[in-house]
C-alpha cells in the first residue's frame, strides 16, 4: 500500500515546476488523508420548456416533509432526502430599455436571461434576443465566494479552470444568444447592447472539453518536463504580449483583455494537466467519443437555426440516442472535474430554451397525431400546441430529462469525495428551467429542485410551498415570490451574503426554509 507521504512526493516530482498549479489536487489528497473539509461545488443544471405542473408538483395535500412526487418529478425520488422542491416562484423580467420592453416576460429567451442573471436586460435585439444586463448568478457566487475558488478571485483556493460552461445542445431559433447561454460576465458599457453583454458560451463537444480540462496535447516522444518548459515559454510569451497590449489599449478593451488573460491562465492549466502525472484520487476519465452532428441551416414552421447540434433521434440508427449519451458524458466529466477540484462551478444545459433537439414522433409511449406532427414534429418539439397528444409527448420528453438528470445526480451521490463523504454532500445541484408552462411560456410557479447533502446546509427532504409573496400564482391567486428570492437564500450556502438581486420588482428578500 502506498503511503500518503510517498504519494505526495511522487506527485510533486511528477508535477515538476507545475507544483503550484497542482496544489488543488494536492489539497484533495491531503484532505482525504487528514480529514479536512472538501471544497464546495455548485452545478446549475438546465432543461428547457418547463414541466407540466400537475405531473410535477405534489398533490395539494402534501406537507413540507411528507410529499409524493408525481410522474415527472418521480425520477428524483431516490434523491428526495437530499432534495428541496420549491413551488411558488415566478420569473420576473425587467429591462433597462424603456420603450415598452419587458425583458422577455413569458418567453424562453427572456426566461433564460432572467433566470440566470436576475437582472434587468440591456434590451432586445431582433425578435427575442434579450441582452443580459448583469453577470449570471454562478459567476456572482464564483467571484464572491472563497469556498468556490473563482479563477478571478484572489482566494488562495482558486481552481485551475474556475468555472465550466457546458451544454448538450445549443441550437436556438434565429441563432439567438439569449436562449443558449447560461453564464455571463458583467456587461461592458458599450452602447451596442449586443457587444455590451458578455456571454460565456458553453462548450458542446465533450471530447474537446476533455482535452482542454483533463489532458492537453502532449508532443509524442518528448520528456514531459522538457515539453512543459517549452510550452510554458510559449504561454509566457503570450502573457507578456497581452500585458503590452493592456498598456496601450484604452479602458474600453479592458474586459476583452481580462477575458483573454483568464483564457491564457486556463491554457496554462491545461498544459500543466497534460504534462503532470495525476494521482489516483483524480483519475482522468476515458476520452469521450465524437457524436453525429446535424449541421447547416435547419428550418421549420417559419423558424430556423444555423447552429450545429446532436439530436436524440438518429434516423440512421434509431436505437442510438446520441443526445442522451452526450449529455451523460458531459455530466460524468463534471463529476470528475469536481472530484479533481479543477472547477467548482459548472453550468450545464440539456438544450437551449428554444430547443432544436430532434425527438421521434413516438417517444416513451406518447405519440403526436399526424396533424400536430405536420405542424412541427417529427423533428422538433411543437411550439405551442395545447392538444392532448402534444402535451403528452412533451411530458414524456420532460420526464426523459428528469430521468437523465436524476441519474447523473445519483452518480454524484455515489462518488466518494476527498473528505470521504459523498460528492453530493459537498455539492449543490440546482435543477432549473426557463418557463413553467411550455405551451404559453407562463413563468409562474417555476419548477425548481435543489439537491445537496449534509455539508451543504440544505434542508433535504423538504417541499417548500411559498404562500407569503405578492405575486400571482398559475391559478390566479397571490402568494408567489420572485425567483431571485431563491438565489438570495442559496448564496449563504457558499459563504456569500446577497441582500439584493435585480431591480426592485425582481426580489423581495431571501426565502426562508431552504437552508438549515
Amino acid at each position: 500500500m502506498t503511503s500518503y507521504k510517498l504519494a505526495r512526493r511522487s506527485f510533486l516530482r511528477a508535477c515538476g515546476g507545475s507544483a503550484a498549479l497542482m496544489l488543488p489536487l494536492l489539497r484533495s489528497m491531503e484532505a482525504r488523508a487528514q480529514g479536512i473539509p472538501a471544497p464546495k461545488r455548485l452545478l446549475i443544471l438546465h432543461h428547457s420548456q418547463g414541466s407540466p405542473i400537475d405531473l410535477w408538483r405534489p398533490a395539494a395535500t402534501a406537507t413540507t416533509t411528507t410529499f409524493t412526487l408525481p410522474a415527472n418529478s418521480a425520477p428524483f425520488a431516490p434523491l428526495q432526502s437530499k432534495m428541496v422542491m420549491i413551488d411558488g416562484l415566478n420569473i420576473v423580467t425587467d429591462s433597462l430599455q424603456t420603450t415598452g420592453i419587458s425583458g422577455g416576460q413569458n418567453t424562453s429567451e427572456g426566461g433564460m436571461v432572467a433566470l440566470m442573471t436576475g437582472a434587468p436586460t440591456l434590451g432586445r435585439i431582433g425578435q427575442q434576443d434579450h441582452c443580459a444586463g448583469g453577470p449570471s448568478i454562478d459567476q456572482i457566487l464564483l467571484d464572491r465566494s472563497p469556498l468556490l475558488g473563482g479563477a478571478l478571485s484572489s482566494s488562495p483556493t482558486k481552481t485551475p479552470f474556475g468555472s465550466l460552461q457546458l451544454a448538450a445542445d445549443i441550437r436556438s431559433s434565429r441563432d439567438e444568444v439569449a436562449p443558449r447561454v447560461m453564464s455571463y460576465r458583467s456587461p461592458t458599457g458599450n452602447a451596442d447592447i449586443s457587444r455590451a453583454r458578455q456571454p460565456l458560451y458553453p462548450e458542446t463537444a465533450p471530447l474537446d472539453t476533455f482535452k482542454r480540462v483533463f489532458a492537453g496535447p502532449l508532443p509524442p516522444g518528448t520528456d514531459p518536463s522538457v515539453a512543459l518548459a517549452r510550452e510554458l515559454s510559449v504561454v509566457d510569451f503570450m502573457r507578456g504580449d497581452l500585458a503590452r497590449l493592456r498598456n496601450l489599449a484604452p479602458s474600453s478593451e479592458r474586459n476583452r483583455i481580462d477575458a483573454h488573460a483568464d483564457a491564457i491562465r486556463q491554457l496554462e492549466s491545461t498544459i500543466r494537466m497534460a504534462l503532470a502525472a495525476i494521482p489516483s484520487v483524480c483519475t482522468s476519465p476515458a476520452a469521450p467519443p465524437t457524436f453525429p452532428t446535424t449541421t447547416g441551416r435547419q428550418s421549420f414552421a417559419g423558424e430556423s437555426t444555423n447552429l450545429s447540434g446532436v439530436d436524440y433521434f438518429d434516423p440512421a440508427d434509431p436505437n442510438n440516442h446520441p443526445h442522451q449519451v452526450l449529455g451523460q458524458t458531459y455530466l460524468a466529466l463534471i463529476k470528475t472535474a469536481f472530484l479533481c477540484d479543477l472547477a467548482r462551478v459548472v453550468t450545464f444545459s440539456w438544450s437551449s430554451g428554444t430547443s432544436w433537439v430532434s425527438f421521434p414522433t413516438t417517444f416513451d409511449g406518447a405519440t403526436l397525431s399526424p396533424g400536430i406532427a405536420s405542424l412541427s414534429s417529427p423533428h422538433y418539439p411543437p411550439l405551442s400546441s395545447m392538444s392532448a397528444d402534444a402535451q403528452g409527448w412533451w411530458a414524456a420528453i420532460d420526464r426523459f430529462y428528469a430521468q437523465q438528470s436524476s441519474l447523473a445526480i445519483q452518480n454524484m451521490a455515489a462518488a466518494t469525495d476527498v473528505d470521504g463523504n459523498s460528492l453530493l454532500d459537498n455539492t449543490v445541484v440546482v435543477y432549473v428551467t426557463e418557463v413553467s408552462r411550455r405551451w404559453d411560456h407562463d413563468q409562474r410557479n417555476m419548477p425548481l429542485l435543489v439537491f445537496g447533502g449534509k455539508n451543504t446546509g440544505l434542508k433535504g427532504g423538504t417541499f417548500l410551498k411559498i404562500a407569503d409573496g405578492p405575486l400571482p400564482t398559475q391559478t390566479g391567486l397571490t402568494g408567489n415570490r420572485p425567483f431571485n428570492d431563491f438565489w438570495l437564500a442559496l448564496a449563504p450556502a457558499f459563504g456569500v451574503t446577497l441582500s439584493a438581486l435585480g431591480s426592485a420588482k425582481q426580489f423581495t428578500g431571501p426565502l426562508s426554509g431552504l437552508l438549515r
Partner: protein
Amino acid sequence: MSRYRVEIVALLAAGLLAACSRHPVQRSTGTAGSAVGGAGARGGGGAGGVVGSGGAGAIGATGSGGAGTLGSGGAAGAGIAGTSGGGALGTAGNGGGGGTGGSTVACAPLSPITRRLWPLLPAQYGNATRDLLSLATVPPLPVTPTSTLPPLAASTLPIDATYLFGLYQTAGAIATVVAPRANALAACGAGETDAACATRFARSFGRRAFRRALDDGEISAAMNVFTTVCPGPSASCATAADFATAINLMIKAFILAPSFLYRTELGPRTLTANAAGVYPDTTLTADEVATQLAFLLLGSTPDAGLMAAADSGALDTPAGRLSELNRLLALPAAQANVTAMVTQWLGVDRAADNVKAPALLSPLAAPDQDPAVIAADLRVSWDRTLTATLWSSPPGKVTDLLTAQTVFANRRLATLYGLPGGTMSNVTFDPIAWPAGQPRAGILTHPALLWAVSDPVNANIVERGKLIHDAIVCADPLGPDPDLNTPEARAVIQTGDSEATRSDARLASGNLCATNCHGELDPYGRLLHAFDAAGNYRTVDEAGRPIDASAMLTAHSPLGPMTSSGPVSFASALVSTNVFAGCAVQRLFEATVAVRAPNRDTCPVNDLRAGFNQSDGTMASLIRQITLSDYARARAGGTR
C-alpha cells in the same frame, strides 16, 4: 500650396478623384463639422429647398466646403470652402454654406470608433498562418460561437478559454507541419551564429506576424522561447535539430500571441493619456492601415506590397493609400473577397445549407435532385454573375446587379430553371438569357438568392421581405419583433391555407406587432412570390391560385409609398432612386469598420453615399469611397 492641396490636385489629375471633394460633415446651416465626422444634417427636399446635404469628398480624407446635392426644388447650395482639415480626425473645416427654404432633417451622428482590438475570425487566422508560413492547407480551425454570424457581429468574438485552446491545438498542428521547414524558414547566413540567426528571424518573422515592427523587449521575449531549447548565454544549439525545434517553438509563440490574434487599431504606440486619463484622438498607423486593407480585401495578413508601402511611409498619404488600394482591387483574390462580402451581405452564403423538397426539383432526373449539388451549382452561378458585373473590363456599376437579364448556368441549372440548355455540360457555366416569360431582375431574382432565403418547401414571404427590407433597401430597423408565441399571435400566424393568404392575415391583423412589421415586410416578400422556394418562376401558388406579384410599399420604405407591379419595376425603382446603391454603401461600410449604422440616415454614411453617387458607380469606387474615408481611419483615443 499645402501638401494636402498638392495631393488632391495630383489625384484629380490622375482622374482618380470624383468631381469635387467636400468637407466631410456639414449641417445645412453651415455649422462647423465636428471632429471625426460628427453630427450633420441633411437638407430635406421641401418646396423651394435650396440646400441639400453637405456631402463627403468623393474619396478625400478632408475637404473643402461642400456642395449640397440632395436638395430638391432649388439650386444646390454652394458650400463655403472649408479650411483644410489636417488629417482624418480633423480639425475639420467650416461647414458648407447652407441655403434656406428646405426643412432640415437631422442625420444620425455616429460616434467615432474608439481605439480597439479586433480579433481575427477563425478563417482569417487560417489564411494568415497559411500566407505567413506558405502552408499548402490549414489544419482544422476551432469552431466558435459566432462562426455563423456576419462579420459585424462576429467582431464581438471573445478570445475565451475554449477558443484559445482551439487555437492552441491548431497552432500545434501547424508547428508539426512546419517543423521540417524550420531551418529553411530561418535561412541562417554562412557563419551566422544560432543566436544571431534566431534574433534576425524573430525580428523579420515577428514583423510579418504582428504586422508591425517589434521592439527590443519583444525580441528578447521571443528569444526566451528560443532559449528553452537552446539554453545558455550564447543560445547555441547542440544540434541542427534543436535549432529547428527552437525556431518552430518561436513560430508557435508568434501565432498564438495576442498581437497576432488581434488586429490592433491603437494608433501610435507613443500615444499617452493626459492627466485626466484621456488619450488624444488619433488615426491608424501605416501598419494598421495595411492591416485594415489586407483583411478587408485579402482576408489575410498584409502582403509584401502592403508591408513595403507601410515601411516606406506611402500609406501615410492619401495618394499612397489610394495607390495600394487600387493595386489590391486589381488582384483576383481581392475581387473574390469583395464578392464574398457582397454574398454575405445579401445572405446568399446560407444557400449551401438549405435543403429543398424533391417536388421543387422535379424538372431534374432523380439522380440530379441532390440539393447540396444544386446549391453548389447555384453558388458558382452567383459568383460568376457578380464577377461578370463587378469585375469585368470595363466593370459594370453596382446597380447593374439588379438589371442583369442573364444567368450563368450549367446543364443541371438550365434544366431546373427552364433555360435553353442545348449541349451544355454540368462542368461549365455559360451566360444564358432568361426566357421572356420569366420576368427576372438581376440578383434580386437570382435563384441562389431565392433559394437561400426560402424554406425547404415554402417561399417564405417574411424572410424574403426581411432580406429586401434589411439588405436591399436598408430600411430603418422596425424595432423589437413581436412575441410570436402568444396564443393571439399563433392564431394569426396559422390563419390561411397558403403563404399568400397567411400573409393577407398578417397584413389584416393590426396588432401582431406594434411597429407594423408585417405591413413593412410582407409587401417586399410578395414582390418575389412568383418564384418558388427553389427560385423557379411560377404563375400559380401552392394552393393553385394565380400569383399577384404587385405590392404596395408604405411610407416607411426608402422608396416612399408606392405600388410596384413586380420585381422588374421594383428593381428599376431601386436603381433610379439610388436606394440600392445607398444600401450597398451602408452595408459594406458596416462590414468594413464593424460599426452598425443606427439607421439609414446616418451622417457618415450619407456622406459616403453622396461621394459614391458622383463616382462611376463601380464596386471598386464604392470600396475606395469607404476605405479611404476619414471615418475608417480615425480613432477616438478613449480613456486609460
